[in-house]
């Protein structure tokens, strides 16, 4: 690990400042007269960054299962993202306070008794805390096992990786149902679970690419990742862009064709009403068309500047995607874009980078 501590030090300063600003705005927002404006952006960021962190572990688990050697170098970059997971558990606990402003089914929208068995605060937070806690713990254990297996101490944790993958799919399906689908209680879509955990993995890939590129310039050893690795990561990103879009398209097409009012309200709000229509089109362009066009030919994938720009755009696209999924259900009539949103988001980014930095201490990149 090349000690470029001058750079590392001022990164820490900036992120610290961002976190403080974030906390200030969180507290202010929570107390302001419309707290749901703050809590919704809090939820969006929480889902985005937890998904990215978890995707790191899943990326490593997938490489483990297919025992592909091509990804061995970028694996450690991916695993360093996982360090944010414990922080996300804490953020989830904080979010309990804001629940009445997030979940409409607590007070604003009444739901039938049968659903209240599933949609009630204690059970919801119970299963999510348990699920995410379990995933965090298993991810960390898996990474330690994987690193020690690399050094030949113990045999490959292949079975562990399979279990981790299955758990990821199941738990993140329930996260999607609880934190996205339940925000508009009368709406339902069977693909929501798969849609969410694929989106998380897809964003995770782009963040891995970004941190690999950024790391290569500043922190990690120069020959740390060869062009070939970037090419493979680029191809994987390109493949996942298409797969992610196919899930978005499948959900849209089935609901649009069925034209059942129960389902089309969700669609109408996001595709046909003014403020959200532009947001929806932007996340489709950022999340699908940009990577499709740029990553199509070989140069797009190997040239690091281009691929890192594409990765950031994909990250932005995913943010907008989660924003469009969550926010219209909570505050449907007003598009809030202001300091509060930026502050909270930057606070989350600062938190992520800081935890990432701490993570690198525990899991140094092998040179």
């Amino acid at each position, binding site marked *: 690990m090349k000690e470029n501590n001058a750079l590392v030090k001022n990164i820490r300063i900036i992120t610290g400042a961002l976190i403080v600003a974030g906390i200030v705005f969180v507290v202010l927002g929570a107390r302001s007269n419309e707290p749901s404006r703050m809590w919704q952006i809090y939820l969006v960021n929480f889902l985005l960054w937890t998904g990215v962190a978890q995707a790191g572990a899943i990326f490593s688990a997938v490489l483990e299962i297919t025992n592909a050697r091509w990804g061995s170098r970028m694996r450690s970059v991916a695993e360093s993202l996982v360090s944010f997971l414990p922080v996300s558990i804490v953020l989830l606990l904080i979010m309990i306070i804001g629940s009445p402003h997030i979940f409409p089914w607590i007070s604003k929208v009444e739901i039938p008794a049968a659903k209240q068995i599933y949609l009630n605060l204690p059970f919801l937070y119970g299963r999510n805390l348990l699920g995410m806690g379990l995933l965090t713990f298993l991810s960390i254990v898996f990474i330690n096992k994987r690193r020690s297996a690399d050094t030949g101490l113990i045999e490959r944790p292949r079975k562990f990786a399979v279990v981790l993958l299955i758990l990821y799919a199941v738990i993140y399906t329930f996260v999607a149902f609880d934190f996205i689908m339940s925000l508009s209680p009368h709406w339902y879509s069977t693909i929501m679970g798969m849609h969410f955990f694929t989106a998380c993995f897809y964003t995770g890939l782009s963040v891995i690419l970004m941190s690999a590129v950024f790391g290569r310039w500043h922190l990690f050893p120069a020959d740390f990742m060869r062009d070939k690795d970037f090419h493979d990561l680029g191809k994987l990103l390109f493949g996942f862009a298409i797969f992610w879009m196919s899930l978005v398209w499948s959900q849209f097409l089935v609901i649009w064709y069925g*034209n059942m009012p129960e389902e089309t309200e969700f669609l109408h709000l996001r595709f046909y009403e003014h403020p959200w229509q532009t947001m929806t089109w932007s996340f489709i362009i950022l999340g699908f068309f940009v990577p499709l066009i740029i990553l199509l030919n070989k140069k797009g994938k190997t040239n690091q500047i281009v691929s890192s720009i594409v990765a950031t755009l994909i990250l932005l696209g995913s943010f907008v995607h989660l924003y469009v999924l969550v926010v219209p259900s909570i505050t449907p009539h007003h598009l809030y874009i202001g300091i509060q949103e930026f502050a909270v988001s930057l606070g989350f980014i600062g938190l992520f980078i800081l935890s990432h930095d701490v993570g690198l201490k525990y899991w140094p990149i092998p040179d």
Partner: protein
Amino acid sequence: MKFSRRSFLKSLGALSFAMAPPVTRGPLQQLYPKLIPAEEIIPGMPYWYASTCRECPAGCGVMHKVRDGNVIKIEGNPNHPISRGGLCPRGQAALQELYNIDRIRQPIFIAENGKQTELTWEAALREIRSRLITGRTSIMTGHVNGAQKKFMETWLRTLPGQNSLVEYEPLNRRADVQVNKIVFNKEVSSTYHLDKARYILSIGADFMETWQSPVQHSHNFAIARQLKDGQACKFVYLGISGSLTSTNADESHIIAPRSEPAILLALAKYILEKRSDNDIRMRDTWAESLAPYSLETASQLSGVALDILKKIASDLSQSDASLVLCGDAVASHERGTESVVAATILNYIAGNFGKTIELFNSPDNDTTWAVSDFDRFVESMEARQISTLMIHQTNPIYNYPGTQKLESALRKVPLKIAFATTMNETVAKADFILPIHHSIETWGLDEPEPGVFSLVQPAIDPIYESRAIEEILLSIRLSTDLPETFEKFINDEWAAVFRKVEPSETFGPNWQTMLEQGGMWSDERTMDSVPSISRNLFDFLSSLKHPVIPAAPMFQVKASHRFYDGRGANKSWLWELPHGTDNSVWDTPVRIHPEIAAAHHLKDGDVVSLSANQRTIEAPVLITNNIHPNVIAMEIGAGHTNYGEMAVKETGNPISLLSRTNDFSSGDLVFMTDEISIKRTEKSRKIARVQGSYDQHRREIIQEIPLAEAVKLEANHAHRPIHEHTEIYPEHKHPIYDWAMVVDLSACNGCGSCVVSCYAENNVPIVGKQQVERGREMAWIRIERFEMGDGRSRFLPMMCQHCEHAPCETVCPVYATMHSSEGLNVQVYNRCVGTRYCSNNCPYKARRFNYWSPKWPEPTDRQLNPDIYHRPKGVMEKCTFCSHRIRKAKEDAKIEGRLVRDGEVMPACAQSCPTGALTFGNLNDPESKVSKLVNDYRAYVVFEELNTKPSVIYLKGIKHG
């Protein structure tokens, strides 16, 4: 449709030749043109001929639609007082008797050994004249009235010997006259006006199916049910077993057989005490003779809970215009007339006479013979007193219990002549069978009800070598008192009627208007003032004995809504029309209470052998708890042995099980028998039922609105838009027309007349029992019956909803179905490839698929409507709101340069509905009935949550407290 150009021109020629006096062979006379003074018949143009339906004694006025020499549709005559435009399923299916594969085509002679030889008319008549023996001659016929009856009687009178016109009709109205004789000591008949009643109590009177005049009663009942200024008629039904009428009641309770008099008289006593104010004469004698009856004993006897009887009693007493009808109960045992007497007493004490019941002193109205007299006639035949017997339009071998006695009696008659359109059991016993005109091919003057003179006129040239029966009688023996041709007789008759009704007018020119109108009816009915009670009524009351209700199971034979007394059983439309309450087709199962089923461990579809009075029949079982635990009931219809191809033979004929006991006073047939024995056979025959499940499974297909809430909403004319959902599809406009239909569920009584009318209008094919069992029925409109949870069930006519966002249109790959600019869901038959995805995607399952290529054997193919495309196998079809009628109306409107007026287009189902439940019109025209009803407070749409935006809007039924 084998109707080549040559045969068409031939029939065209024949038609114009028929413009001559309808009796082709008669001498040419001055020509009375038919409806339109047709210089020539324009092929392709439909012509309408007003006439009268002779399917049952009710005598509804009908219009026959004739296209290119064939009658293709029968519709109710809008200005006829009995049908008022509507018809019952039997009336709609009369065409299947006219165009029937088993029609008798020319005279037949049956030798002793049963060999049938076909004769020409001259040979047959010569042979008959030669065999005529002087001695008693009698004509055994069904119920005949008006000119035909008069002709026959005068013809018989001029013959030497003591001749008689025997009218045998198992289901008849004689009970009224007999009872009025007992109660008022006057031979008067009574007419029931349901439209004026506010509370109707029916004891076994299925007035929507077979009782007296179903179309007229249904029409009036629907008027009474409408909510007007806070009032809607409440209807309670007490009966031995369930029926279509009991299903439509607000409350229907099962009572023990023979307990009707006790209930009615107990109610009368209750009202007597309650209404101390009104001026009932001889109040004290009433009180004394009604003393032994009380609601408590009535409830023990009948098994109905006491509080229910109390509720009925209080409702009756509070209602200012109530009506008590007594129907099948009269035929439940030999003392049946007592219950009708009790009902009349209850009506009298409740003061209904003069309000909802009218009396007429025209005694000769219903002159059918009492069955006891018919027994004596059969004995006289047995004793060889009858030398010549003529059989006309009746089938006693099938619907008279003493079959063996009748057969041996018939063998004793030397000369038997049968006048018939199609072969049946009795006709087969005759020596000579002479084909006569069907009622659509002959002249006549019927008088179904006092003061109503209903015309019968031929719509087409007789399709086979048949003649009018009166014509044949004249050609057998000319009678001195009668004119030499039947044509002249009819003219004289109508002239006589004309003089009586319209003395001022001259007959000649008005004959034409009368032909168009379909008869004459004097509005003012001779109405008697309420007569006084006869003295011996009270000792009759005192002579009433306490009824003994047998413990052993009893067998009730019910008149069938589809086959009346068994006469419609050769019509495939009626067999394929699902039964009113249990949707079974092509069979008449025996209905059994679960207790009896458990006792004999039977389950649905097992075949049982029922035996009584030394006769046994077999029938499949249908378990229902809408029947008295001690009674098993079966409808008439099956068991014909010689009645054409369509009649169902495996299931037996229930009438044959009846014992020949007759009612003590009216002498009518008793339709129940005590000693019935039920034995399980090994066979089982699945009853083909068209409905999957009778429970709505919380899908609110049939919705109801409580009376109290309806009154509030009706008061302030509340309106409610139907479709208000977020729309992700762009709006598409219907510039000129936007056709829609409104179905009023409070009016629809599930009679199925719309279903048969649709079969006739749209050439819907028949598929038979085995295919209906496999779910391939072809009806474009069907009656769905769902249980409403509290024991009641309601009806909903379901047809293609012509949705604005039709799920079926999107998925058709070849544009075989699409949305027209007039709001119709168009189905293009010749473009359809048969992927059947549209039927899968239709939430209402209103689409039907031709799994087989439909076949119409000659002559049934002459009934096909030429406006409709002949769908081959492999093509999807559905209700098109009779788009050919819409197109015709638009063409007519275009010629006159105007839009189609409201009511000008009526689909076949809406036109035929006796209760006017279906209204069709153009939503773009604000004045149309439809656009007013669409936003009615009762309006709703089936499966609104699927956002298909249907064009068929239902009005909620009203749920009485």
